[in-house]
């Protein structure tokens, strides 16, 4: 074969190209159709900023129940300005977005949607590339730069570990305490109502600033709270559709810094 590219070769090669493009279109369609989960339950969290005192107990209970390194947090309590001279707090767990950038970018599918809307991590599949961290608009992921060894300072005061510690080299994040939800449902309990089936941060909050429940159930606490109060979500302009809703102080969304 000479190195000259004949017309026939060119047509052949083009045909391969067209076939590849067709296959590519299929992939693109799949890629575009990142539809949100549509299970029987759609879990969501509602946070009353007027009730949050910034005590940080949600974070400690979270660290205990999920056995998290004390230097890493799945839920953070941030200061978000003042209203009438009082500090307003903004607790920030994972938003469990309906269109989650982390799920969309993960090359191996280690981040995925559960049918009930929880954005989950498969810690066994993850290769540790950290693209999810790069893509998350809420800084909700923390990476295991080293193995968490030794005692968890929040155990047993704030709870007992219910899940395995994650290995070094993978990012981790809030799972809405899926282990409590799943176990609760199998026992016939209602997450958000029965303590054993409710996320640790919701349960521990002394001022009941966090509530949890099923958006598909019109009588759940979260559905009611969202019906009766104005609410907002973080970086709504990105179209991620978070499942964590905030009810602002005095019904005002923006707070002055």
């Amino acid at each position, binding site marked *: *074969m*000479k*190195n*000259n*590219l004949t017309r026939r070769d060119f047509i052949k*090669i083009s045909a*391969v*190209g067209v076939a*590849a493009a067709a296959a590519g279109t299929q*992939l693109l369609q*799949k890629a575009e159709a*990142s539809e949100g989960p549509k299970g029987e339950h759609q879990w969501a969290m509602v946070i009353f900023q007027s009730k949050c005192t910034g005590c940080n107990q949600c974070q400690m209970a979270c660290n205990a129940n999920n056995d998290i390194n004390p230097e890493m947090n799945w839920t953070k309590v941030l200061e*978000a*300005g003042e209203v009438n001279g009082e500090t307003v707090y*903004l607790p*920030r767990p994972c938003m469990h977005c309906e269109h989650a*950038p982390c799920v*969309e*970018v*993960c*090359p*191996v*599918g*280690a981040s995925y949607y559960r049918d009930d809307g929880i954005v989950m991590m498969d810690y066994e*599949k*993850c*290769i*540790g*590339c*950290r*693209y999810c*961290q*790069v*893509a*998350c*608009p*809420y*800084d909700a*992921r*923390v*990476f*295991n*730069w*080293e193995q968490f060894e030794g005692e968890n300072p929040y155990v047993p005061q704030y709870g007992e570990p219910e899940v395995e510690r994650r*290995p*070094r*080299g*993978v*990012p981790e994040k809030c799972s809405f305490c899926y282990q409590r939800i799943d176990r609760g449902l199998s026992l016939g309990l209602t997450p958000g109502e029965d303590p054993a089936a409710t996320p640790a941060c919701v349960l521990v909050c002394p001022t009941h600033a966090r509530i949890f429940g099923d958006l598909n159930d019109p009588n759940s606490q979260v559905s009611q709270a969202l019906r009766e109060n104005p609410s*907002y979500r*973080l*970086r709504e302009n*990105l179209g991620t559709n978070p499942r964590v809703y*905030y009810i*602002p102080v005095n019904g005002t*969304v*923006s*707070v*002055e*810094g």
Partner: protein
Amino acid sequence: MKTILKTIRENIFTPWGLWLGFLSFFLLAALAAGITVFWKGLVITNLTDLVPWGLWITIDLSSIAVAAGAFSLCAIVYLFGFKRYEPIARTATFIGFTGYSMAMLALLLDIGRPDRFWKSFVYWNTHSLLWEVTMCVGLYFTVLVFEVMPIVASFEWLRKKYPRLAAKMESAHHFAPVLAVLGLMLSSLHQSSLGAVYGVIKARPVWYRPEMSVMFMFTAILAGVSLTLLASMVAARLTDKARVSDMLIERAARVLGYLMIAYLYWRFWDWLAQTYTYEPGRTEGFHLLTEGPLSFNFWIGELLFGALIPTFILLYKPAREAPLWRMLALAMIVGGVVAFRFDTNIVGFLAVVPYLPGEAIVQYTSYTPSLVEWTAGLGIIAFGLLAFSIGVKYLHVVDHRLVPSDHEVETIAVGGTVHPV
């Protein structure tokens, strides 16, 4: 044993021996650094949750960029039919192979679970740009292996010891045009989706723009062709194992000069569009480039030395015809592209976009690579230099006297007189 020691003693103080010793120093240090990283984990780097991608990703992006000479020149030779550039394509292919190997080394260091790297080929999320990048790296590297086979087959030792294997490998060049088309598809997909890896990240407005993929593609072609020409010229000056046709290189360099004009045009509009209106995160990120800690990289590294001066040199005939000036310009282009990729990666992290409501205050963070990152990173570069040096010395990767289709060493002039620069 004695004879081996004797050969070493006799050869160590030759330029080749010293060069190998110099590179070995960096390679051994990097080996130690790499083992430490696998042992201790990424905690010994200066990467953080706010800046999860740093120096190693820059080296990965830059190695991929300089590897782009392979597909660019293969396309020029086999698709557009400019046969005279075929000897340069041979060099470019070898550099491409080396560049992709470097990139894979950098990635292996960078991922948190190097033991699971194979999972990226087994588990697919076709929605992910990084999946696409992984597939392209894997497939294109395979193409490069086939493209490099005839080059490796020219190794004297292999020809003598395993003549049949060498002949088999040699015969891979029959597929050169097909491989060129395949490589062109995979590589251009890969180069542009590497930009899109950044361009699709909505959360970081300074990256979020469609030009990212085009810019990455464009800069890759510039850096890839520049490094190929530069490496050929340097090799020809340092060893008589490398022979170049200066006229051929000069002609290619002129084309590169025009490409630089197109790049500057593109860059200008990309730049101007970002100065319009205030957007939290994007504007702050942009200011990090124009007046912040990255401003030296941006104005001097990317634009003045990285683009304007080399464009002038390559388009001004007397300067272009002077080998030293031409080499300088080519080196500047490579440096400019590396600076562009470093800045592009880091700028998206340094300006931290807020998610608190009603608080448009952008915060800043910083990143300086740690010693272990530098050591391992320099080792990867030393690896690339070693691979290229071996290629020049034993595989005739820079030899413009070669009749390309049969890769036999013959003294036939290609595109003019042949002489070392």
